[in-house]
Each structure stands twice: as structure tokens, then as C-alpha cells.
């Protein structure tokens, strides 16, 4: 069985390639797969039904049914379990046989030039495989997987004509309805499996009696109802019947296969599969019989109203599905026999009829009975094939439909006469007879509508049919006749299934000898004698014929009755309402305002913990103190921080606000120092300084004032949220710290640091050794952020395109433009430019590139003096950090600060001269160094980030104790330098350039001027009255 499945899916996977090469004839190749499987199935007959007379000891459920299992997820008890018993075998016959014929038919139905044919063929074949898997699966979840597979494939198949709105819409509708049912079913299956303790279907059915009456009876009943919901949606029973007529937008072969023979039978199959065990649950009979009967009547009634022959068949199918579900779900041996017989007969005749409709549509271009006329005269063969199908549908003797329907009526007669059901038995019987009358009437209407010559309608043009096109429906109609004339084999196939229903015999009787089974179930036969069932059939024929002849009257009556409820409209309203609700909720929650989202998030963030704290109602922990005895100055620092923060909130100038936040930051640094954390204090000071510079650099182009634009009631809300959040954090922290009982792990750190890490600075050793992984992650984040900054500002490339300072004209960088010469500013500017003419010692490498008005002699001199000391100091911090305050972070920041100084004093070319290596390269080198220092120990036989202590002697320095984690720290150092450099280059140098480009474009007379010589020319000529010769400023041009 698994092989059959695998072949189906494998061939489906390669099918598109076959189609590309061989066109529509590839369908024949695809048809070979289910056809071959069908032959294999016939050979399985002996194995399934036991060789000769079954004499095996044990329950009938175990008599020789072939089983295949392959474990899949043992932890979940999920396995590929397949079992071929009588029911599965009969269903497989239908699935594979009709599947093969439909594929054969497709080869003539479609044209080579039809698009997506390959995918279509693959889906159809895969569908046959999934359907086969569904009926043979012996595991509830496995079955569900195949169930959903058929749903998805049916969606794709119905939506084959993807450019047509009708096809897409009905495909989606079918998907929604069946998936909704499928979800309900999944819940039911899990409930059932959990109650039974196994998902193996055969095992569950064996213990069904115990389950139904056992302690979990309620759960089992609910589970069965949920599973039936799935079956009802799949088999298009009322109130979900509307999707099936809608799905007629599918290509007709798909309708023939999915909507007549295979997929819609899946629901019936579930009912049939569970019926032997669960008919006695509370809601089974009302649900199955009630919905089944309603469906049968609604479908038949609506079928009489249709003018599209395909829709007549569709509603007829709905009606028949209700009918079959009723019989199969009745739970009696004779009903089981009759139900499966009807299922087979229906599959044969309905597939025939759909294929015939496809041929009519294909050859004449319409399916409308008001346009079709005289088709029988055009093609008698087609008419005969269709006639056999329709006659079988109506239940006319000598055909399969008659045989099946007789036994169904027989079963309902028994049911009606059986005690215990009161008048319901008779009601059901009457309903079934009425439904059969309708069936006869719409069968006649179908034949008349499709083939008759209608007065007043011109004869439909009809192209001749190729025999190969008609082959598939013809074969099916032949089978219908054979079935009718010689029902014995079918009878034998179904008897073992019917035997499951013989009460009290399930567990004990092994020899299901023909006598006892037949006694309960009866036999399928063409002629039972003059039975009451035959009488009912006669009544049916008479009434049905009368309805057909009085069709005008029937039509008028139907038109007079308003359609009191249209399920399709109901579906649309439901979906529309869902859409509206979704839009409404989205509109209320997704307002597009960040403020709103944040307010909601933050409110939740304080309401929940606060509520928990209040609910817990714990007293404040002991050990609260306000003034730390070791460091009372914290109060002062704290006051400073709070004042800074409040001032930052109130500040209405941008840089004032930034400065106030910096005050807070420096205050925190002081706090660190007071708490006993010199490393933190050092790092915080450096970071605060660099941030301040970065802020100023980035924000110099933004307006100075900083208005509070969210005013009024929002401000009150913000104050409340802020205060509540702060208070919550305080109390949460108090309680969290008060709840600590364990000894801090860090008490071990001093010892670890000294002996394992070889360093005295515990914090630094923690960073580079004890928690090296953490630090490695952090420097990766730093590299990312640096790259992010660069990409935000540079956009095009990472600023490695700066010219060297020697290529830049003197005094060209950062010139002020557009200053009114007569103003005070203008006079000052002219003065500075005059002085710039004087030759000056180059304190900085690129100092001369800066415009004279930008230069500061003091700054340049100080930078010159301090820079090298700062770099040396940063190296000292790096190397000494293992034992003294410092480390890679502090050192890197110090070096970054030195670079900042160079940049501020000498402009962007100075920065470039100071760092010949680009920021990106630095970041890469740093990360690589750190990574190598982590990986190298592995190569030497240690662990990742293991450090070693190497002691050696150097002249001058004396004994050196070198710890290898310093290499890691060096990596950190380089990354931090890279980060600062990236910030300077992006927020500093690149923005400088933006500035210099922009005024040129804004100024009228400089509009055309480019950077460099042309710009200088303009500037120079402008300054001639000031007495500066143009040549002197151009002297620096290299």
C-alpha cells in the first residue's frame, strides 16, 4: 500500500516534465498509475477476504486484513499505518478505477495548448494517491493528513482556471468550508484518540463498545459529533451543501472525480468507518439521519430548478450524498450492505454523467438546457451512455442503481418496522421515498434537458465525438450494467463489512459463514420477488414520471415559493461579517501611531507587575536602607542625576536637553565610582564624552529649539505612565532583591579570576575570560551597529574614498558661504581670512586644509601635544587592564577620544591622515583577532576561549606575566576603536561633506561651482577688495 502511495506521489512530482514533452497524451501515462494500482488491488482480493472460506480464529476485524506500518514519529505515536480491509478495498476500487478512467478522459478533454496542464495532471494524480491513502490509513492522524491533502489539492484543482474569478472564488469557498470542518474533525480525532489511548483506527473500533458506555462516554460522544462535522462539510451535507454546486466552476473531469466519485465520498467513508462502533453514541442517529434526509430533499428540490445540466448533476450529487450518508450511518447489517452498494453504484453512474456533461460542453460550447437541443440526434452513442447512467440514477431495473436502491429501501423498511424509534422510522422512510421521487424527476429532467429536441430552440451545433473521448464514460456505463445484472461479486465484497454490524458477534464469531451473515444483512440481487421495496419503487417511478410530465406546473410552483434561506448567501454574509470585524479590530488596534502602541505596551508593562505585587500583598523585605554606610555621598550624586533628568525633560533647546542627559550620565559615572566600580566609572566617563560629541556632530543641522509637540491630555497620560512605570520598577526591584536567598555566584569570582584568569582586575577577567562568550557576542553587536551607522549616512559606500590631505587645496574645507560682507560677521570673516595668508607652522598634518575661519591655533597645539600621550595611555589601559582599572573597552574608547580630538581640531582630512586603515577593516581585524583567540586554544588541544599564562623575561621590563586572554581584549580594543572611527567618519566627516555640498547649490552665484579650484576662484575674486591676492590662497594646490 505504501508502494502504491509512493508511486502516485513520485509520478505526480515528475508529471510536469512529462507534460512539457508529450502534451496532453501524458494523461495516458498518468492514468497507468492508478490503473496499475487497480490491477494490484484486484490481486489483493484473496489477501483481504481470506483464501477461500475464512476460517481464521478471532474477530472479523482481524481476519487477514493486510497491514503495513512504518514508524514515523515514535515519540508522538505517529506512524504510517495502513490497513486494507473490506471497506478500504471497496473504496479503493472506486478511487483507483474512476481515477484511471478520468485521467484517460482528460487526455481528450484538454488541449495541448492549455496552460498549466502539467501542474493540473500532477495534482489530479496526487489527489488519487491522497484519496487512496485516506481510505487505507489505519491511523487517525495519518488519515487526517490525507484528508487535508485532498482538501488542498481540491482547492488547486477547482481553481484550475486561475484567470477566472468564478473558479478562484469557488475554490476558496470549498477550501474554507472543508477546512473549517477539517479543523473540527481534528479536534474530534484527537479527543477520540486520547480517550481510547491509541490512534490506531482498528484498535479504537475494537474497544468502541467500551468507549461508548465507559467513563469517557461524554467525551467520545462529543468527539464523534466533531468528526461528523468534518464529514458533513466534506460530503456537502446541509447546511454546508452550497460549496459543491459552487465547485462546478472546476473543469468537468475534476467534478466527475472529486465531486462525484472520490472526495465527497470521504465524508461518507468516515461515517462508514466509524459506524460499526459509534452508532450508539447520543447524537449519531439524529445527526446522520436528520442532516442526511434534509440534504436529500434540498438537493433534489434544487436540482429540479437548475438550467445548467452540470448544476442539475451537482445538486443531484448533494441529494445522493445525503441519501448514502443516511444508509451508511444507520448502523445495521442490511443498511451497511445497501449503503456501500449504493456508494459504488453512485460512483459509477454519477462519474459517467459528469463525463458526458463534459463532452456535451466540449463539443457544443454550452451546458444550458435552454440552448441545448437535439444532441441525441447528433450523437446517439453519447445519448445511450448518458441514458444508462441516468437510468441507474433513477433506479430503473437491470442496472446497478436499481439493485442498490432496492436493498436501501429494504433496509429502511426494516428500520421503520423496528421497535424503538417510534414514528421516526416511518418519517425517514417517507422522506427517502420522496427523495427518490425527486431523484427520478431530475434524472428525467437531465436527460430531457441535455438530449431532447426542444420546440422553439434551434438545433445545437455539435462536433463529432472521437471514440477515445467517449471511452471512459462508456466503460463506466458498461460496469453499471454488469453490476445490475450480476451483483453477486459486489455482494461478496461488502458482506465482511456488513458482518461487523451483527451484534454480539463482533468479538466471538470468527467464521463469518455465509448463512448467518446473509441472514442479517440479506443479499444484493436483481430480483428479490414481490417485496414491499419493489412496491415503493413502483410508486417512486409513477410519481417521478408524473412530476416530469407536469414539469411546467412544478416549475411554476417552485417559482412561487420564495427561497426562504440561501446557504450560499449565508456563507457570503458570514465571510463578509468576518472581514468587517477584522477590519474593525485592525482599525482600532493598528492605528499607525507609535505613541499609541508604546502607551499600550508600557501600560501593560506596569499594570501586570503592579497588579501581581498588590495581589501577592507581601510585606517589604528587610534590609532596606536609604543611606549606604560605606558611601553616603551617593545621595548627592543621586540628587544631581535626578535634577539632570528632570531638566532634560523640561529643556526646550535641543543641545540643552542633550547636555542635561549628559549630566545624568556623568552623575551615573560618579555613582559607579562611589559604589566601588572604577572600571565602570572610567568607561562611563569616556562613553559620555564621545556620545556628547556624536550628538553635537549629528544634530548640528537640526533646528535648535525642541518643541514638545504632544500636548494637552496626552501629556497627562505620559506623566501618569512614566510615574507609574518608574514606581513599578522600584517596587519590583525591591521585591526581587528581597527575594534573593542564594549566595551570589560572584563570590567565587575573585578566586577564579586570580587562579584561572591570571588577573587581579576581577571585572576585566570576567569580561575576557569567565564570560568571554558574552563579550564576543557584544563586540559583534558593536560591529553591526557601526556598520549600520555608516550605511545610514553614507548610503553609497563606506567613506574610503577620501582624498589624502596633500591633494586638497589649502583652506578649502568648511568655508562659510553667504555671509553678508557688510555685516559684523562678514568683517570678522574677512579678518580671519587675511591672517590665514600668513604662513603658519603645520601643527597638524591636514590643518592647512581647513578654512581659516574654522581653525583654532590653541586647539591645534593642544591636540598636537596630547594626541600621542592619549594613544599611549589607551595602550596602557588595554595592557594593564588585566590587573588595574582599564581593559579593552576603556582603552578603545580612550583611543577613540584621541581620534575625536584630531578630527575636531583638523577636520575630516586630519581624521583620514590619523587612521590610514578604514573603519570597516578595523572592525574586521578586531573581530578576527577575538575569534582567533577563542579558536586557537582548540587547535592546541584546549577549549574555546581557554586562556593560558605565559611568564617570560624581557630586558627593561623584567619578568612579564602574559595572559593569552589579553589577545582577546586586544580584539575588543580594535573593535571599539573601529566603532568610534565609524561614528566620527559618518556623523562627522560625511555630514561635513553634505554641508559643503549644500550651500554651494543654494547660493545663486555659486550654483554652478564645483568643489575645488572653481569654488576657490569664486571665493578669491570675491575677496579681492579685502586685499588678499588670489594666488596666495591657491598656493597650496598640489
Amino acid at each position, binding site marked *: 500500500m505504501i508502494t502504491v502511495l509512493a508511486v502516485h506521489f513520485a509520478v505526480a512530482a515528475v508529471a510536469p516534465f512529462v507534460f512539457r514533452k508529450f502534451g496532453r497524451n501524458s494523461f495516458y501515462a498518468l492514468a497507468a498509475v492508478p490503473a496499475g494500482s487497480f490491477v494490484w488491488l484486484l490481486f489483493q482480493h484473496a489477501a483481504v477476504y481470506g483464501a477461500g472460506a475464512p476460517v481464521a480464529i478471532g474477530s472479523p476485524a482481524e481476519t487477514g486484513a493486510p497491514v503495513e506500518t512504518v514508524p514515523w514519529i515514535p515519540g508522538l505515536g505517529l506512524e504510517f499505518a495502513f490497513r486494507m480491509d473490506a471497506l478500504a478495498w471497496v473504496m479503493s476500487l472506486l478511487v483507483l478505477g474512476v481515477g484511471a478512467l478520468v485521467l484517460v478522459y482528460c487526455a481528450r478533454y484538454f488541449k495541448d495548448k492549455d496552460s498549466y496542464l502539467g501542474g493540473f495532471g500532477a495534482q489530479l494524480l496526487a489527489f488519487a494517491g491522497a484519496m487512496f491513502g485516506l481510505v487505507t490509513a489505519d491511523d487517525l492522524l495519518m488519515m487526517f493528513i490525507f484528508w487535508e491533502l485532498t482538501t488542498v489539492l481540491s482547492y488547486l484543482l477547482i481553481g484550475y482556471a486561475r484567470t477566472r474569478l468564478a473558479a478562484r472564488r469557488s475554490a476558496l469557498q470549498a477550501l474554507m468550508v472543508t477546512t473549517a470542518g477539517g479543523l473540527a474533525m481534528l479536534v474530534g480525532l484527537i479527543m477520540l484518540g486520547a480517550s481510547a489511548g491509541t490512534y490506531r483506527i482498528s484498535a479504537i473500533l475494537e474497544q468502541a463498545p467500551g468507549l461508548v458506555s465507559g467513563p469517557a462516554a461524554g467525551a467520545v460522544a462529543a468527539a464523534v459529533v466533531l468528526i461528523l462535522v468534518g464529514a458533513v462539510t466534506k460530503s456537502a451535507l446541509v447546511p454546508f451543501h452550497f460549496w459543491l454546486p459552487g465547485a462546478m466552476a472546476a473543469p468537468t473531469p475534476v467534478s466527475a472525480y472529486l465531486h462525484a466519485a472520490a472526495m465527497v465520498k470521504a465524508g461518507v467513508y468516515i461515517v462508514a468507518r466509524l459506524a460499526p462502533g459509534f452508532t450508539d453514541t447520543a447524537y449519531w442517529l439524529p445527526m446522520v439521519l436528520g442532516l442526511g434526509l434534509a440534504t436529500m430533499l434540498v438537493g433534489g428540490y434544487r436540482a429540479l430548478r437548475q438550467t445548467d445540466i452540470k448544476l442539475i448533476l451537482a445538486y443531484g450529487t448533494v441529494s445522493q450524498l445525503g441519501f448514502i450518508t443516511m444508509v451508511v450511518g444507520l448502523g445495521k447489517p442490511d443498511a451497511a450492505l445497501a449503503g456501500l452498494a449504493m456508494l459504488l453504484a453512485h460512483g459509477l453512474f454519477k462519474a459517467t454523467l459528469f463525463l458526458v456533461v463534459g463532452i456535451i460542453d466540449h463539443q457544443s*460550447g454550452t451546458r444550458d438546457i435552454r440552448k441545448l437541443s437535439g444532441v441525441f440526434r447528433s450523437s446517439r452513442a453519447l445519448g445511450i451512455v448518458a441514458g444508462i447512467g441516468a437510468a441507474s440514477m433513477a433506479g430503473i431495473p437491470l442496472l446497478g442503481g436499481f439493485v442498490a436502491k432496492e436493498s436501501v429501501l429494504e433496509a429502511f423498511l426494516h428500520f421503520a418496522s423496528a421497535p424503538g424509534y417510534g414514528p421516526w422510522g416511518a418519517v425517514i422512510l417517507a422522506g427517502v421515498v420522496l427523495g427518490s421521487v425527486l431523484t427520478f424527476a431530475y434524472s428525467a429532467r437531465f436527460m430531457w434537458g441535455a438530449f431532447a429536441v426542444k420546440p422553439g430552440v434551434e438545433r445545437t451545433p455539435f462536433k463529432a465525438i472521437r471514440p477515445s473521448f467517449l471511452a471512459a464514460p462508456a466503460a463506466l456505463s458498461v460496469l453499471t450494467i454488469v453490476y445490475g445484472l450480476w451483483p453477486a461479486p459486489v455482494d461478496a465484497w461488502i458482506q465482511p463489512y456488513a458482518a461487523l454490524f451483527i451484534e454480539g458477534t463482533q468479538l466471538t464469531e470468527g467464521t463469518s459463514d455465509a448463512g448467518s451473515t446473509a441472514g442479517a444483512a440479506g443479499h444484493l440481487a436483481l430480483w428479490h420477488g414481490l417485496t414491499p421495496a419493489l412496491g415503493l419503487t413502483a410508486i417512486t417511478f409513477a410519481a417521478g414520471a408524473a412530476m416530469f410530465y407536469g414539469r411546467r406546473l412544478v416549475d411554476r410552483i417552485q417559482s412561487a415559493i420564495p427561497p426562504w434561506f440561501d446557504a450560499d448567501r449565508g456563507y457570503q454574509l458570514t465571510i463578509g461579517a468576518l472581514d468587517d470585524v477584522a477590519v474593525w479590530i485592525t482599525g482600532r488596534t493598528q492605528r499607525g501611531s507609535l505613541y499609541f502602541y508604546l502607551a499600550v505596551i508600557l501600560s501593560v508593562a506596569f499594570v501586570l507587575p503592579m497588579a501581581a505585587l498588590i495581589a501577592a500583598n507581601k510585606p517589604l523585605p528587610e534590609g532596606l536602607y536609604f543611606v549606604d554606610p560605606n558611601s553616603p555621598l551617593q545621595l548627592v550624586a543621586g540628587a544631581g542625576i535626578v535634577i539632570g533628568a528632570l531638566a532634560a525633560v523640561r529643556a526646550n533647546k535641543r543641545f540643552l536637553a542633550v547636555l542635561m542627559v549628559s549630566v545624568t550620565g556623568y552623575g551615573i559615572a560618579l555613582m559607579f565610582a562611589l559604589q566601588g566600580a572604577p*572600571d565602570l566609572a572610567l568607561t562611563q566617563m569616556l562613553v559620555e564624552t564621545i556620545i556628547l560629541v556624536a550628538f553635537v556632530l549629528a544634530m548640528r543641522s537640526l533646528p535648535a529649539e525642541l518643541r514638545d*509637540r504632544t500636548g494637552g491630555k496626552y501629556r497627562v497620560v505620559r506623566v501618569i505612565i512614566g510615574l507609574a512605570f518608574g514606581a513599578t520598577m522600584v517596587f519590583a526591584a525591591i521585591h526581587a532583591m528581597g527575594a534573593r536567598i542564594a549566595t551570589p555566584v560572584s563570590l567565587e569570582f*575573585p578566586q577564579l579570576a586570580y587562579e584561572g584568569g591570571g588577573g587581579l582586575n576581577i571585572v576585566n577577567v570576567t569580561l575576557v575570560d569567565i564570560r568571554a562568550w558574552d563579550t564576543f557576542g557584544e563586540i559583534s553587536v558593536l560591529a553591526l551597529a557601526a556598520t549600520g551607522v555608516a550605511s545610514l549616512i553614507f548610503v553609497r559606500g563606506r567613506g574610503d574614498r577620501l582624498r589624502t590631505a596633500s591633494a586638497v587645496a589649502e583652506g578649502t574645507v568648511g568655508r562659510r558661504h553667504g555671509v553678508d560682507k557688510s555685516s559684523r560677521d562678514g568683517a570678522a570673516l574677512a579678518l580671519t581670512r587675511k591672517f590665514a595668508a600668513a604662513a603658519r607652522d603645520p601643527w597638524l598634518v591636514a590643518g592647512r586644509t581647513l578654512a581659516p575661519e574654522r581653525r583654532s591655533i590653541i586647539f591645534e597645539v593642544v591636540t598636537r601635544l596630547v594626541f600621542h600621550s592619549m594613544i599611549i595611555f589607551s595602550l596602557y589601559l588595554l595592557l594593564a587592564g588585566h590587573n588595574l582599572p582599564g581593559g579593552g573597552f576603556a582603552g578603545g574608547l580612550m583611543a577613540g577620544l584621541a581620534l575625536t580630538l584630531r578630527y575636531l581640531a583638523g577636520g575630516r582630512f586630519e581624521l583620514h591622515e590619523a587612521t590610514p586603515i578604514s573603519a570597516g577593516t578595523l572592525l574586521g581585524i578586531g573581530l578576527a583577532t577575538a575569534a582567533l583567540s577563542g579558536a586557537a586554544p582548540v587547535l592546541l588541544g584546549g577549549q574555546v576561549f581557554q586562556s593560558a599564562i605565559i611568564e617570560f623575561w624581557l630586558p627593561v621590563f623584567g619578568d612579564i606575566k602574559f595572559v593569552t586572554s589579553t589577545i582577546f581584549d586586544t580584539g575588543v580594543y580594535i573593535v571599539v576603536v573601529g566603532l568610534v572611527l565609524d561614528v566620527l567618519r559618518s556623523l562627522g566627516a560625511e555630514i561635513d561633506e553634505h554641508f559643503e555640498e549644500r550651500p554651494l547649490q543654494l547660493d545663486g552665484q555659486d550654483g554652478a561651482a564645483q568643489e575645488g579650484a572653481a569654488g576657490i576662484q569664486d571665493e578669491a575674486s570675491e575677496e579681492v577688495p579685502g586685499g588678499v591676492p588670489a594666488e596666495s590662497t591657491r598656493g597650496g594646490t598640489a
Partner: protein
Amino acid sequence: MTVNLTLLTVMGALYACGIYLILERSLTRVLLGLMLLANATNLLILATGGYAGLAPFFSKDTDPGSYNDPLPQALILTSIVISFAVTAFMLGIIYRTWLLARQDDIQDDIEDRRVAETPSFDAEDDAVIPVETSEFPLPMLGSDGSAAAESTATVEAGGRTLLAEHAALEEKPGSANFTTDTDTDTDTEGGAK
């Protein structure tokens, strides 16, 4: 375990100010708020270390408990530098917003508002489409002229009239049929055909 209320009070104040600032529309203020939040969180971590103590430099004679706890310090050190990187990144964003849009404000997302006003009509679901009675519409010879017979049929959809073909072809639900401009476009186009 002991709890330093000074640190926690300062922390609470910083949190309150930070939250107040990030609920502001100005991007600069939001960034300043985030910095205050970072500082507050550093204080929170610092407070978990308990009493102020000796700077954590190992000496053999010192009891491990008399150092200020080194573990929170290591965590804070990491946090300080990461905050710096994040701040730099945010500065880049602010500058770029200013450069491109000349504003320092957080704008509301117009698209979200538009979604909230989406009409429930959706051509894919709700357009009335003509009944099709064949997969092979006439004339059969050229199967490309599929809907030729139906081209004059119009449908009422969401208070406007458009050709059935167009209703069927309308692929983009929300955006295509939202404004009336596109409606008239579609209609005149259809008329021209």
C-alpha cells in the same frame, strides 16, 4: 539581601523621565529617553550588587564578600558600550530622517489608517459575476476570445458600475478600488474598448 533605596529611587526617577520622553513625537527626545532608560537599567543592575564595597581588585587577604559584586559590574560594562553603539545608530537615523524628510518627528503610518478605512467590498469576494454555463464559450475556434460575448455586461459593485470583465480581473482588492479616480479610469478604458 540588602536593598539600596537611594539607587532605586534614582532609578525610578530615571525610568519615569525616560518613559515620558519616549512617548514624545520628537525623535531626539525619544533617543534621549532611551539613554535615560539605559542609565536607569544600569543602576538597577548595580543595585543588585548590594552594599558599596571595595573595588574588585584581587588581594589575597580580602574576604570575597567585601568587594562590590564584580558580576553586575561586568554586565554593566557591556551594557554601557552597547548603549553607545545603539545611540550612535539612532543618531544616524535621526540625521537621515532630517536629511530626507526635513523633520524630526515620528510620523503616523498613513497605510495603517487607510487599512482601517478599507471598505468591506472586495471584488474577489463580492463582485457580481455573470453565470458561466460553459468552459468552452463560443466561438470555439479561438479560445482566446473567452469572454467576448460578455463584454457589455456590467455589474454593480460597491456603489459603482464596472464591466464584468474588469470586476473579474480586479486583482488588488483594497488599493485598486479605493479611490474614485481609478474607477473612472477603468470605466473609460472599458468604454474605449
